[in-house]
């Protein structure tokens, strides 16, 4: 226990150092790589704070997919930061002042790990006590995500969907003039195919990443996981394939039409479950009425909406990746 706490404090220190270095460096490539490391560190920290689901998401999304997106955008812009910092004294002043004020304010927070803190005495005990009775699944996070706060998650899925559509619109138009490019990602036909080691190792990994993604998807009710994590993991395995074999081949594997279908289909599937509940005589997103046994109904509803979430997240992340990767061909 004592060792864990020392490790935790060490990780937090490393986190601050990484964040400051990512802000300070003027080489943007270094900055992006540091944010990737930062994500991995914060994921370990989430795990130490008992949030295994969040750790899995942060590791898959923050350290994996986000780094690829940032690098993809970086290849289309400039690698070096040109202008010097502006308003530096003001910014440093604000930094110190707000840090002190916030640091002082946090002294009034409930102490760390206090079981009687307001956040732990409101609805959380209800979730922990009633979930076995209502839906009989061990992972409370999935239960809250899919059922108790199903509306909320539906909203989040539509935000993800909308962001995907937004990227398609912004990067779907032709640029008005040619500008010089500094680098290329997954360029056209070839990718990294002529590099032996990435190719062999990558090919070895892809099926296992895909399998792990499917496990996380369908085992989300019993262990850390669910649609959001699985979507990010499956998308990252396809992105790895695109990086190795070239974007063209990845598009031959999953054509754009299929991607668009996935993006919209997952969100629609989620909504359809809600409507099915209404047709069966319950409220919108009430899964209890989907089967004769309310518990079975809840489990069925959770399985289908998690699948919907996974499909949409996979679709949107791949759509965004292809939007950036295709940009260099215009």
């Amino acid at each position, binding site marked *: 226990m004592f060792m864990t706490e020392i490790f935790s404090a060490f990780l937090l220190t490393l986190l601050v150092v990484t964040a400051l270095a990512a802000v300070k460096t003027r080489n943007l490539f270094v900055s992006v790589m540091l944010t990737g490391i930062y994500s991995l560190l914060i994921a370990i920290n989430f795990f130490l704070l008992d949030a295994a689901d969040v750790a899995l998401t942060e590791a898959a*999304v923050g350290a994996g997919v986000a780094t690829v997106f940032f690098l993809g955008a970086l290849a289309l812009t400039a690698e070096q930061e040109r202008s010097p910092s502006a308003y530096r004294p003001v910014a440093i002043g604000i930094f110190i002042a707000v840090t002190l004020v*916030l*640091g002082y304010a*946090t002294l009034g*927070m409930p102490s760390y790990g206090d*079981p009687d*803190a307001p956040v732990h005495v409101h609805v959380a005990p209800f979730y922990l006590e009633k979930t076995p009775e209502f839906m009989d699944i*061990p992972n409370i996070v999935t239960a809250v995500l899919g059922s108790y706060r199903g509306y909320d998650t539906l909203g989040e899925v539509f935000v993800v969907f909308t*962001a995907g559509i937004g990227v398609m619109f912004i990067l779907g138009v032709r640029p008005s003039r040619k500008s010089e490019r500094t680098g290329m990602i997954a360029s056209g036909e070839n990718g990294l195919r002529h590099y032996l080691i990435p190719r062999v190792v990558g090919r070895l990994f892809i099926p296992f990443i895909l399998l792990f993604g499917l496990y996380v998807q369908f085992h989300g009710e019993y262990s850390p996981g669910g649609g959001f994590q699985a979507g990010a993991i499956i998308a990252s395995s396809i992105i790895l394939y695109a990086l190795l074999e070239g974007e063209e081949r990845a598009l031959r594997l999953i054509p754009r039409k299929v991607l668009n279908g996935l993006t919209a289909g997952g969100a629609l599937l989620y909504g359809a479950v809600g409507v099915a509940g209404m047709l069966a005589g319950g409220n919108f997103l009430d899964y209890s009425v989907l089967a004769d046994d309310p518990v079975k109904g809840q489990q069925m509803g959770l399985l289908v909406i998690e699948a919907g979430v996974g499909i949409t997240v996979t679709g949107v992340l791949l759509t965004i990746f292809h939007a950036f990767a295709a940009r260099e061909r215009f």
Partner: protein
Amino acid sequence: MMEFLGLYHYLVFPLLLMSGIYAVIAKRNLFKKLIGLALMQSAVFLLYITMAKVEGGTGPILKPGEEDVLYSNPLPEVLILTAIVVGISTAALGLGIIVRIKEEFGTVEEDLVRELGGR
């Protein structure tokens, strides 16, 4: 020790948050500003998850047959889980806008973009 670690968590949060805000205020490179926003966002994630922790608790996945197990709070975890995925989607939207700015103006430095003027 637990107390010290709690205070340390609460101190790290403003440091991370403000290093993000520093990048947003002081850096003129739009790409760097976006990285700053991402840092701010994850600082808030850390604060939420810190508050979900219960001393001596374990992750909120029920262990059938075991009585008297203390579980950490699942609710903040759910909120942050979805926020992370929404965060990457919106960051990608921002990156898309930056790529378009680069194509139209040839630069992503805020002051140079302003000099070239919006059409």
